[in-house]
């Protein structure tokens, strides 16, 4: 009889890996997300709509295509940048969690940029002007006014991206495969389990774990978003 409360080695590994992949994909894409969100919110420049479209591509392109493009770009042997990255930094994405994190980051990036962009757009630019008249240069204006006021949007961007990377399947499986302990996150583990006849209970358990993690992260994000709103409306976090 299967004990429903003691997780198997595979399940623990999948949960851990999902968290690690989610963390790294969000952590590494955040600075870029803030940068592009700010760029799109605050500036008009030639090619803006092309850049905007390009950043949104992973949202509309089938994840498998994204994974394929990642292979072409970052494949260790035949990729465009892959061999160079490996020789210069010893960095390889093949069949490990780094590749899964990269795939998740790319797929989740549009969601993050969108949330951050919207929140920066909603900041009264007059406040930035006022800061300028008080002697603040562009950097100080950004770090003391724009960034703190964009916190609610940044938090929701983080959560959206994290949730998306938890659910990421197609790009990851195409780019780095489905290897136990390396790239087998929750959805990949679930898919692998489903291939094995008679393992419906395992599958159900993985699905429930996924649900709990997703729901938990939504609650945590709601909590932070509320605090951040209060912060924006005056008051400390």
């Amino acid at each position, binding site marked *: 009889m299967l004990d429903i409360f003691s997780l198997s080695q595979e399940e623990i590994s999948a949960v851990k890996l999902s968290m690690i992949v989610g963390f790294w994909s969000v952590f590494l894409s955040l600075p870029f997300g803030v940068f592009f969100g700010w760029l799109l919110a605050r500036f008009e420049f030639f090619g803006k709509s092309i850049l905007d479209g390009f950043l949104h591509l992973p949202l509309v392109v089938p994840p498998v295509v994204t994974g394929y493009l990642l292979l072409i770009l970052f494949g260790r042997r035949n990729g465009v940048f892959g061999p160079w990255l490996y020789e210069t930094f010893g960095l390889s994405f093949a069949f490990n969690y780094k590749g899964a994190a990269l795939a998740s980051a790319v797929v989740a990036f549009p969601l993050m940029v969108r949330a951050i962009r919207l929140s920066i757009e909603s900041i*009264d630019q*007059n*406040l930035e*002007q*006022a*800061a*300028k*008249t*008080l*002697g*603040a*240069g562009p950097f100080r204006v950004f770090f*003391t*006014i724009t960034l*703190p*006021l964009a916190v609610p949007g940044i938090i929701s961007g983080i959560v959206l991206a994290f949730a998306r990377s938890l659910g990421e399947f197609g790009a990851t499986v195409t780019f780095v495969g489905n290897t136990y302990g390396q790239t087998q996150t929750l959805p990949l583990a679930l898919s692998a389990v489903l291939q094995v006849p008679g393992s419906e209970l395992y599958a159900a358990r993985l699905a429930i774990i996924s649900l709990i993690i997703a729901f938990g992260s939504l609650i945590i994000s709601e909590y932070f978003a509320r605090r951040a709103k209060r*912060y*924006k*409306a*005056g*008051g400390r976090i």
Partner: protein
Amino acid sequence: MIIMNVEKKLGDVLIKCDFKLDSNGITAVYGASGAGKTSIINMMAGLISPDSGIISYRDKEFFNHEKKINIPADKRFIGYVFQDSRLFPNMSVKDNLLYGSKRKSSYSLSCNLEQVCNLLGINHLLERYPQKLSGGEKQRVAIGRALLSNPEMLLMDEPLASLDSLRAKELISYINIIRNNYNIPILYVSHSIDEIMQLADNAIYMEHGALKYYGKAVEVLNKTSHTNSENASFNTIFEGVVKEYDKQSSSAVILFGAGIVESACEDVEIGKKVRFSINVDDVVLSIDYPKNISIRNIYNGVVSNIVKNKNNLYDIEINIGESIWARISSGAFKDLNIACGKNIYVMFKSAAVTDSLRIVH
């Protein structure tokens, strides 16, 4: 010395401004909405750039189109008090006040937090956040923030516009305190003649984007009041000094260009500068010296200008030592046989002075 000689196309309006200002104190920038008042001070602050021309202050060129100089707003040392205060919602009042306090320049004010808070009465607000402040408190903090950024010049864009009349009156006294305590030029955008009467030393009048008049506040107000009235009644504004004051009867004797005028007035010191306005409809004209009459303010003068307005009324300008405008009917105009150069007596009631009397700093 502030020099501004710029042109800027904004939509359909060509902003054109050419003036030299060499006084500290408050210079009002006034005119109808859309006349380009705010654009002028935004160009001064560096928030918008002119298409051509020069802006300079003391020995510094802020903008020079030909030399391709355009110093960014954050390096101009100009404090700006906005209409909507624009306090940073993510910072406490204290952090707002100190936001610009690190910069220094050789000519800039150096204020300290305690002094500014005392002057503006905002000591008790320091730990609060902007959302918890009233409109008047916000504006006081905004003024304090601008002062503490050690500016060489202060710009104010209708700082009273969002306040009720009681708060506005209170803030005017604070602005006067600033004027008297700190020796920097203040450009004060307003469309309220009443505010200008109470605050301004000099005035710039803007019309359709162009600077029309520049000079002493009272002179500029009087130059524009008739042309702007479009047949509605308007005021002549006078400046005077309190010569005598009787506390018991609360009555003051004010010395002005045409002689003396009596007015009821609460709490004023001898020697204080005051301004008052007389409405054209409150002025009575007489060919002979009126005897046995209750009016105490009677002046002898010479008619210097006659304008017939669309309602068949006559606006008469009389020089009584200073110029004053009176409005009379066409019947009265004929009966009195008024013509330029004619000697005439001008009267107005003290009540008219009392209603409009404003103490200036």
